């Protein structure tokens, strides 16, 4: 099974790094979508089937937290797992995000191995098996 994955970060460099990490982690990908903020992400989620979202917190226009809150208000979108990828290390912030339904938190800088472990834990598969 290959996944449709959405990367949400205002930094094109970070999106490229996550994309590369997914490849190195041998995560099976069907479609890879990019969004520069939460609003763009919601537009993509509105028109595409997405299996997993990787999102930053601090972004212009709409933050990752606001995006998650919007997703929680939608019966279908609230079932899409969101992984926050951020530089912040506040345990308080991470708890707040998990209370809002965020499935996992990855702190930058990260390794492909960590990405693989998180995808495996959430999607229940590894290397397409």
């Amino acid at each position, binding site marked *: 099974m290959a996944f449709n994955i959405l990367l949400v970060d205002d930094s094109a460099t970070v999106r490229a790094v996550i994309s590369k990490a997914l490849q190195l982690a041998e995560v099976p990908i069907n479609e890879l979508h990019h969004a520069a903020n939460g609003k763009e992400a919601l537009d993509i989620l509105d028109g595409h089937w997405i299996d997993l979202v990787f999102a930053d917190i601090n972004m212009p226009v709409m933050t990752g937290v606001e995006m998650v809150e919007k997703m929680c208000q939608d019966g279908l979108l609230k079932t899409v797992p969101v992984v926050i990828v951020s530089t912040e290390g506040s*345990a308080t*912030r991470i708890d707040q995000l998990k209370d809002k339904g965020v499935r996992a938190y990855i702190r930058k*800088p990260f390794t492909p191995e960590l990405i693989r472990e998180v995808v495996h834990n959430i999607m229940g598969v590894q290397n397409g098996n």
Partner: protein
Amino acid sequence: METESKDIVSEVFCDVLEKLAYMFGESIPKEDFPGTGADYVQAAMTFSGPMTGKLTLAVPRAMSVEVAANVLGMEPGDELVETRSSDAIKEMLNVICGHVLTAVAGEEPVFELSAPTLEALDEANRVRMLNEEDTACFLVDDHPVLLRFSWEELSKLER
């Protein structure tokens, strides 16, 4: 920057540099900071929470290209690397800032971070930054680098 927090910031900077960009930095005394005619860029971002302040990173433009190449896993001569060099330095500052705040303030406080900005840094302003008390100096793979962490506790600001 007080000596203790300066040491913490220096340690975090070198750690993030190594993990994010596979580059190695060493802290050097201000008087050993080499004079250089290189073009510099300055990335800066602010934070607010229990402490409020600003983190500023000044690097030679050539180093920003190396950082982008290493972060992206591409060759420095690649056209995309040149395009992404500004973005890469801003992202590096963003990661440093997050880790510095945790190292200095602990894991409980929540901070709001601004988006990093980037601009050219002329020689006069580079010298001014070097002479600031809260600026730390590094050599990163032979590139002279400046990092300034200036902050105040909210309780002091409210007085």
